[in-house]
């Protein structure tokens, strides 16, 4: 049967594909969840409409990356999926509940006004906030590892509720708020843009602080991680990560005080990339830290081969028409154009 494993290191490739899909999810749904987090703080209803309109054509596509992350994990690493989902049962359910509440708010909100609309405004905000916080909690638990025995989760139902996970949850809320604010700086003008800049400035401080705290905590989670970062010659190869991140933060600060609309968003993406890559290389090659590597958890090579062909064929196509959809709705979001 069709099998590519003699030519390619399939588990490694799949680990990379899943990590990339999740990263694209974090970026793309990150900015629209961020918009939901900032939503109630917008100065006027007109601002809120602009926020909503700026993401309405995209949120569905953005969320599909989460489905690819989940579906891809199921297909390429079934045992990892089978361990992590029960391990994070309640956070996953709460995240999904949040995503439902915010997802339906788009269509329902368009169809209402006045007091009815307030209900969906709240649903949009609370849903976005819950989903983001829970994603942060899942991340915080993921890096700490889960208890496994005999290919199954062996921990308790509330293992996920711990201090570090709370910190990562809050951190992600600020992170998404930042990328949401910089998205709005790009896609909006006038009072919405001015407000978004002010918010970005404010959130910036928290993001920088949170990223610092999480980065400092990471090496204490597992000896392997601290050994990885703090031994020569690794420390020299890895030094660019913190250095580039610091430069990006400084540049972002400067950029937020300039007239450049798109630069803050790009720089925030870069900061996200650095943070994500930092976590990624710290955990490599664990897929279920610290019990299954990507090779231990890999599906049958024939399964990974089949789906790899589809991914190579369709992923470029997906990226192309996603880009096309962003191109169609390019430019500033105008409240006027609602009419």
């Amino acid at each position, binding site marked *: 049967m069709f099998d590519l494993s003699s030519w390619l290191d399939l588990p490694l490739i799949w680990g990379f594909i899943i990590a990339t899909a999740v990263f694209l999810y974090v970026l793309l749904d990150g900015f629209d969840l961020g918009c939901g987090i900032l939503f109630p703080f917008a100065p006027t209803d*007109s601002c809120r409409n602009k926020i909503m309109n700026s993401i*309405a054509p995209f949120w569905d596509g953005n969320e*599909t990356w989460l489905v690819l992350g989940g579906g891809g994990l199921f297909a390429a690493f079934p045992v990892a999926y*089978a361990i992590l989902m*029960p391990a994070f049962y309640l956070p996953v359910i709460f995240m999904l509940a949040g995503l439902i509440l915010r997802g339906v708010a788009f269509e329902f909100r368009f169809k*209402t*006004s006045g007091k009815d609309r307030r209900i969906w405004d709240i649903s949009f905000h609370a849903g976005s906030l819950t989903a983001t916080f829970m994603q942060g909690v899942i991340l915080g638990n993921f890096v700490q590892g889960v208890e496994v025995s005999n290919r199954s989760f062996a921990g308790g139902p509330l293992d996920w509720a711990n201090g570090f996970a709370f910190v990562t949850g809050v951190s992600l809320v600020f992170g998404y708020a930042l990328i949401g604010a910089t998205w709005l700086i790009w896609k909006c003008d006038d009072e919405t843009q001015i407000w978004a800049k002010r918010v970005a400035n404010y959130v910036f401080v928290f993001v920088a602080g949170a990223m610092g705290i999480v980065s400092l905590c990471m090496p204490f989670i597992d000896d392997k991680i601290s050994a990885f970062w703090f031994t020569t010659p690794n420390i020299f190869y890895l030094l660019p990560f913190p250095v580039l991140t610091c430069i990006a933060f400084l540049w972002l600060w400067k950029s937020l005080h300039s007239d450049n609309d798109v630069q803050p968003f790009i720089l925030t993406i870069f900061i996200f990339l650095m943070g994500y890559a930092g976590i990624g290389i710290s955990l490599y090659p664990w897929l279920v830290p610290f019990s299954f590597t990507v090779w231990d958890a890999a599906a049958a090579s024939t399964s990974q081969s089949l789906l790899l062909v*589809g991914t190579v064929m369709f992923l470029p196509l997906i990226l192309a028409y996603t880009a096309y959809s962003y191109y169609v709705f390019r430019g500033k979001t105008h409240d006027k154009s609602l009419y």
Partner: protein
Amino acid sequence: MIDLDAVLLARIQFAFTISFHIIFPAFTIGLASWLAVVEGLFLKTGNKIYEDIYKMWVKIFAVCFGMGVVSGVVMSYQFGTNWSVFSDKVGNVIGPLLGYEVLTAFFLEASFLGIMLFGWDKVSRKMHFVSTVIVAVGTLISAFWILAANSWMQTPQGYDILDNGLLVPTDWIEIIFNPSFPYRFMHMVTAAYLTTAFSVGGVAAYYLWRKKHVEHARIMFAMAMLMAVFVAPLQLMIGHAHGENTMEYQPIKVAAMEGNWNRGGNKPLYLFGMPDQEEEKTEYGITIPNGASLILTGSRDGEIPGLRDVPAEDRPPVAIVFWSFRVMVAMGMAMIFTGVMAIFLFWRKSLYSFKPFLLWCMAMLPSGFIAVLAGWFVTEIGRQPFTAYGIIRTTESVSPIVAEQVMLSLGLFIIIYTVIFGAAVYYILRLVRKGPLISQRADTYYSHSTEVVGKIAAEDAEGKKDV
């Protein structure tokens, strides 16, 4: 070791979330195809009425599609949260099928949906039409993969079982085109088309009844009735073929559908009956003698499988399968009757005006949804007590989770789904009451959603700029 409460709760929770989910794809698969036809007709004829119809229904489509998306994201995680052991064992086989669904369908639908809903004057008319067609094709591709995966769970083949209990694929063509797949795919897509047809027909009947939007309503009604005339009988034939296929590969499911306990010939068709799982018989039967044998085998003394063919622990819950099957068939028959009546009234030139028939069509509006849900109950509960038929039992599939977790999530989903379902129905009814004429205002950026409600129009009049 196995917590039976957790298994039962996990089943109830999964059944609830997936039943809720299937309502929306069942509608949007058909609606997307129909909207593509309507927009095509508009492009070809330039008749504004088609544009009005499109713009009215695309709003309803948006609500339903959104509901389908949010409840669908849940499904992609529920395999792992509720059935992790199953996921681990069969992930090699059905994982890639679901992966292909995401890659070939979900992104396609999601990206072009944005253009379909919000791009009316952002792209050319042709490109907009292309977007609608792409979304419609996307829904069908999605149905292809998910039904391939589901059918494999019903009639698995093309795999090996390793010593550690994991399944590995041996032949992808056998896995995807497993014996029940072609029948299930045809049956479900046709069901989705009929669901849409009867929804559109019901709304059109309401307009004709109230003598509102008559021009639009006649077109909608005629199209719906054409589906009832041609597709409803076709569905009966597909369903029959599906049944024969099930008798070959899942005979116990057929035995449950027929309420038949002992294998043999000259078996009656139960119109009514009370299957009793404990006593192993079907009581209070109102039957057509030899009916089941005749329908399933073509001859009156044809042999029909019986539930006693297998030990009691290998039988599905009989009563719910038996009754769901009868509900589904009743809906199908009512649909065929609608088609026959439509031909008769068309011949009498009173199709659009015979009030009892309009009332009947309004009552038939939910028939497709009921039939789809009942049909899925038959096939999914009929597969019990296995998740992958004959390979893995449901009790061996469940995640290592405690009952309280599942109870909490079930409660949460019940609350949220009830609220959003209520809201969706409320807003859809409002859109229906508003009717198709609203789109005759100038086309605008977010027109699909902003022009909808009377209140907004009132605010316009008051000069508020705040939408």
